[in-house]
């Protein structure tokens, strides 16, 4: 296990050490101390390493993650795990806006609450939030899953494509083209599996499912004159 103190070094040195593992993985476990809200911690990882960040992380923590397992023992700023491809990211506290934005794969777990636009433009990753999510979550989300064990803010799933959303608590309002859908057996199975992977013991039967009505999928474009 290697410990890197950001206060004594820099984010650049940390990230370079982590990136070097893609070429030749000499160290499987990293502990990061004194992050003090620094931005871009552990972004662009491309190796099966475990990174434990002890403290709060700033913007874009674990951005574009591939294969790595990153845990923030604190809160995370905007753009947490943005465009993640695979692996997993967990935040023990809360996450700010745009958590999991455009993420293509992997699992993002937020033990606390997530801010606005959680899962915006999601492209295939799974996100499980233990608390609430803010307004415009899953805006234009294309694929993947968002599970919210608390409440959802305004305009949930606005202009949604094929992402599936499960919410246990209340939904303040649904966005354009987002509708409540029947919870079938396959959805209960999927939700059960996601809650298990996230380590949450909520009852899947307490959730409602939301998805796209698919009414906005096509313009009428026959306007050639």
């Amino acid at each position, binding site marked *: 296990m290697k410990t890197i103190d950001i206060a004594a070094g820099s984010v650049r040195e940390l990230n370079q050490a982590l990136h070097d593992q893609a070429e030749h993985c000499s160290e499987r476990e990293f502990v990061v101390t004194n992050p003090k809200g620094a931005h871009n911690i552990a972004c662009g990882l491309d190796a099966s390493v475990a990174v434990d960040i002890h403290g709060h992380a700033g913007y874009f923590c674990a951005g574009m993650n591939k294969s790595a397992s990153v845990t923030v023992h604190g809160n995370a700023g905007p753009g947490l795990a943005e*465009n993640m491809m695979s692996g997993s990211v967990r935040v023990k506290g809360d996450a700010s806006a745009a958590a999991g934005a455009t993420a293509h794969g992997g699992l993002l777990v937020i033990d606390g609450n997530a801010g606005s636009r959680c899962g915006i*433009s999601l*492209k295939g990753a799974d996100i499980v939030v233990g608390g609430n999510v803010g307004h415009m979550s899953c805006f234009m989300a*294309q694929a993947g899953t968002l599970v919210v064990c608390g409440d959802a803010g305004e305009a949930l799933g606005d202009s949604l494509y094929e992402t599936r959303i499960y919410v246990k608590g209340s939904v303040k309002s649904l966005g354009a083209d987002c509708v409540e859908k029947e919870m079938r057996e396959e959805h209960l199975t999927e939700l059960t599996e996601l809650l298990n992977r996230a380590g949450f013991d909520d009852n899947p039967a307490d959730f409602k499912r939301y998805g796209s009505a698919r009414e906005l999928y096509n313009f009428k*474009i026959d*306007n050639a*004159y």
Partner: protein
Amino acid sequence: MSEEQDLNVQDGLRESATFDRVTMNEIRRAAETGIYDIRGFGAKRKVPHFDDLLFLGASMSRYPLEGYREACNTQVTLGTRFAKKPVVIDTPVTIAGMSFGALSANAKEALGRGASAAGTSTTTGDGGMTPEERGQSSKLVYQYLPSRYGMNPDDLRKADAIEVVLGQGAKPGGGGMLLGQKITDRVAEMRTLPKGVDQRSACRHPDWTGPDDLAIKIQELREITDWRVPIYIKVGATRTYYDTKLAVKAGADVIVVDGMQGGTAATQEVFIEHVGVPTLAAIPQAVQALQEMGMHREVQLIVSGGIRNGADVAKCMALGADAVAIGTAALVALGCNHPKWDNDFKKIGSAAGFYDDYHEGKDPAGISTQDPELAQRLDPVEGGRRLANYLRVLTLEAQTLARACGKNDLRNLEPEDLVALTVESAAMARVPLAGTNWVPGQSF
């Protein structure tokens, strides 16, 4: 006056300048369909442009270079501010971002082949990077767009530069559009969306807002690529002075300013014609901003939107640009709107030279289409050869003008080498009206 107008005059008929036939046709079209007109191409209205500027060749007070033999450098290095590995191009004419999806795979390959043969860069678009494009492009700029379609760190690391797109000249403030008829299985898979869905790309980035956030985003991209490649910021020409300053502050290595004549694959006609400012007006604003910050030539400026010939290239450089980008002209070089397909254009209600319904995917020239039968009309090798030839002509023409002005490097051209033909262009370009010392807004 056209022959048709002559006939009208003879018949005593008078067409309204306000409600001309094109305008009335659009009113009827809107009344019939109930939806705005969507089309490709760039602004078709006449705006002050580079044709309104002239070079002052050398005479008694200036010493010209011998036109064919004396050296005139065209090589430019982009991204010298922070990147470990800046992009070096042999000609200051680059290929602008155009997506696979909007264009066929053959067209993208041809652009890569042509650019590589001429020693310059090409650019991905709102649809990710294809292996064909990467394979055929010796220098490839990877666009980082609001939609993030196909965005992934592997392709990011394969890029020679990253272009963060905030907007484009054809539609500043608007997102991309790729309608369902062009969404084949491959395009759909690259964009993670169902086949046949109209893809209306986001107009703003999903995970940052404002220039302070952008500075952190740029740092993230640098961290992911270990500070190896330059980061460009592309904006549509609107509030260019302020956008340039904010882009420099956010940490850009290169700024790309796209004027309103810049093309698009599809957007609303009203957007194309009524939003943004002409390229000519934008360049001096960007250069002023860079100069005030002491960053002119430190942060390079690429200009696009309506560049057609070597004179346009040279005029951009004289106004302070470090390089230009071409999109529409590159497609025309490949064969877009070629008269040999005129019968096929007529079958779809258009004509060679007028075709702009790129969004419909029926391009007879096989360029802005995903139809395999149409796409095979463009041979990527031949297309690449044509584009390389065209790029060489642009470069030779620009060199000719630079030598005539006594310059041994295209970047030594300066505003002092230019005059304007109209008051409007003099005001926008900030050069004197020909035959006077008058620069509107600067002297009386």
